[in-house]
């Protein structure tokens, strides 16, 4: 159980930090927001990230990837969290490439993974149907029709939904609304007839969309995995997704903490640095404690897959996501409070982190969801 980075991972972390600092500072994110950029991410940055090999970091070598390991992707995500860098890395790689690698047949893998690795194919997972993450709660129907299937339903909070070329759509092919059994995943061309995409403006200015499916026809070969057994792919993909988000959230937490700490050392009131006040010092230590706990639980979970501890993934991923939700929630809130009035201004960057924090918390399950899941997994 490695709880420290090896040499290769340390090098990756350094190069990720360097690229994010140089090519994706928070000012870039602000510019995208203010320009109401249609893509919602910088194509130039994505090209640079792809050139570094990050799009293929978890993809097997035979399909054009680096096969560096899941921990590597977590390391990159952590650094993107520090500068709030928006990119297709979460929707297309963390989620999309994981789904194809885990659930795709040979044809699908050969067709999709190389394009994902070279950054030319963008994907999105169309899963949520309500305002609360509940991955087996699926009402979108896929019904047999002329040798293929016809999909009808509505999805919400589809990350990168409006820029994706190919959607992974979770549908119900049998069973009741909340049943694990009876879910089927389909690969659907975003441009197909009957697919209507509406971009939604979230508080963090990142990409999300509502998508409706009206009599969208797909062939049986578009099924990812097996009919009615989509949850067998969905669950491990969502574990990876939650864990990847937790990694990004650690980066965001660390950045907010460091900025806040610097402010405590610099801001003077009553002829003294405010960081000398005990009430602020103790709260800063509380944040530090949460950060150290978060680092430990995250690094253990990230290394689990690369160490073949796949069976532990559900509990590890839920524990890591829950802990990071708590930590980022606390630190992003304290970040504003400790900056005082200036923290409330749009001109100052600290508010961006609070906004991103709340969206990240809700992405792939918030603390409440994951505590509930852990209790269930542990038999209570």
């Amino acid at each position, binding site marked *: *159980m*490695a*709880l*420290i980075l090896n040499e290769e991972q340390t090098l990756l972390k350094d190069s990720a930090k360097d690229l994010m600092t140089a090519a994706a500072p928070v000012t870039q994110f602000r510019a995208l927001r203010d320009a109401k950029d249609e893509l919602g991410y910088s194509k130039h940055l994505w090209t640079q990230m792809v050139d570094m090999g990050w799009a293929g970091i978890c993809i097997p070598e035979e399909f054009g990837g680096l096969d560096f390991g899941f921990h590597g992707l977590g390391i990159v995500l952590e650094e993107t969290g520090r500068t709030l860098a928006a990119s297709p890395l979460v929707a297309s790689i963390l989620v999309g490439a994981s789904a194809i690698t885990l659930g795709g047949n040979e044809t699908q893998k050969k067709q999709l993974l190389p394009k994902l690795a070279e950054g030319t194919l963008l994907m999105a997972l169309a899963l949520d149907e309500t305002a609360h993450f509940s991955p087996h709660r699926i009402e979108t129907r896929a019904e047999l029709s002329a040798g293929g299937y016809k999909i009808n339903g509505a999805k919400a909070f589809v990350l990168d939904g409006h820029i994706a070329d190919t959607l992974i759509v979770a549908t119900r092919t049998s069973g009741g609304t909340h049943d694990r059994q009876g879910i089927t995943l389909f690969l659907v061309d975003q441009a197909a007839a009957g697919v209507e995409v509406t971009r939604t403006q979230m508080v963090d200015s990142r990409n999300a969309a509502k998508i409706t499916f009206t009599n969208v026809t797909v062939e049986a070969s578009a099924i990812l995995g097996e009919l009615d057994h989509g949850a067998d792919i969905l669950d491990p993909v969502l574990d990876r997704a939650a864990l990847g988000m937790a990694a990004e959230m650690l980066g965001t937490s660390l950045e907010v903490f460091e900025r806040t*700490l610097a402010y*405590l*050392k610099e801001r003077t009131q009553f002829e*003294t*640095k405010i*960081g*000398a006040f*005990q009430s*602020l*010092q*103790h709260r*800063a*230590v*509380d944040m*530090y*404690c949460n950060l*150290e*706990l*978060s*680092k*430990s*639980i995250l*690094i*253990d979970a990230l290394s689990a897959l690369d160490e073949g501890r796949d069976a532990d993934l559900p509990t590890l991923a839920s*524990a890591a996501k*829950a*802990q990071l939700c*708590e930590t980022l929630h606390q630190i992003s809130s304290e970040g504003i409070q400790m900056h005082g009035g200036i923290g409330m201004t749009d001109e100052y960057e600290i508010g961006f982190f609070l906004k991103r924090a709340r969206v990240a918390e809700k992405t792939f399950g918030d*603390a*409440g969801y994951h*505590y*509930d899941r*852990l*209790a*269930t997994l*542990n*038999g*209570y």
Partner: protein
Amino acid sequence: MPDVDQFRADTRAWLEGNCPASMRSPMTAEEVVWGGRNATFSNPDSKLWLDRMAAKGWTAPMWPTQYGGGGLSMAENAVLESELSRIKARPALNSFGLWMLGPVLLEFANEAQKLEHLPKIVRGEIRWCQGYSEPGAGSDLAGLQTKAVRDGDEYVINGQKVWTSYADRCDWIFCLVRTDTTVKHNGISFILFDMQSPGVTVKPIQLISGESPFCETFFDDVRVPARNQVGELNKGWTIAKRLLQHERTNIGDFGTAQSPQTPMHEQAKKYLGEDASGRLDDSAMRREIAKYQVRQKAYGLTYARVGQELKAGLGDGAASSILKAVGAELNKHRSEMMIDMMGTQGIGWQGDGFNDWEIMQTRGWLRSKANSIEGGTTEINKNVVAKNVLGLPTK
């Protein structure tokens, strides 16, 4: 690592033959072996187990063999720990000598002092207590007033200590004394003496838990050989602080060391029941338990991570500074949750209506309140982390 594999095989075989079967189950507080001149063994196997482990030096596995220790490397020690935990072996000996005094003697004491005291600690022959806090020196420990005045080859000690753990059952004391009254931190010395010396009086303090693990200790013209001073005159504060680091790690460890044998959620089901789908029939407590378990897991992993970082020579081990405070908070929280889920069965004091386990939880809950006070309060701990780790200004 073939050597380590061989060591594991040898260790496993030795434990198989030498760890009595009755020493392979969880122990109650009464069964803990503390050693000392008046040591009590509730089970003769406890004595046998201690003697066998001490003969190998495995009560202090990493101390050098010339002082009675096991002389094991870090890797060998890890193997020994995992083999002991594999057979659920009880600790052969619990002692402040092993946890706190020994490590600082190894670092600061002269050869004669090491040879005199360390082997007796390893064998559990002498039980040590800690003479630190005074009525006027708690969080501000360096304000201590117990005085040691040089008289020929001896010191004459006068003053009072408080919160001296198990002073009524201990043989020797490691004690902070003032040897210079004109300065604060630089006027303290670290000295060892026999609790049977004339002039030592001990008075147990009854606590809210009903127990009396601590005492008030009075010194009235106690004469101590000057050679019992450890380190230099007036430089005792450095040793005192180092010893506190060992103590804090140990108290922080309560978060894991005293985890209940049965997982908390199983106890909760006993008292709160299940709903139709087998869930704990109290959704607020269910979430609270899950949250606690996540934090507990993160805490255990932080311990392990700090260990790996130190071993690899990475970082400064700064995360270890928070272990005591977080461990204390976790143990207090766990105790509050336990009595909460037990309802009125969790707030009984004694007598009919409550079983032993329930009374133990209640007493343990009261005892746990001290976790964030003893060995430096959490508030003092946070002050230190804010200044030394986070680099926050003092003014």
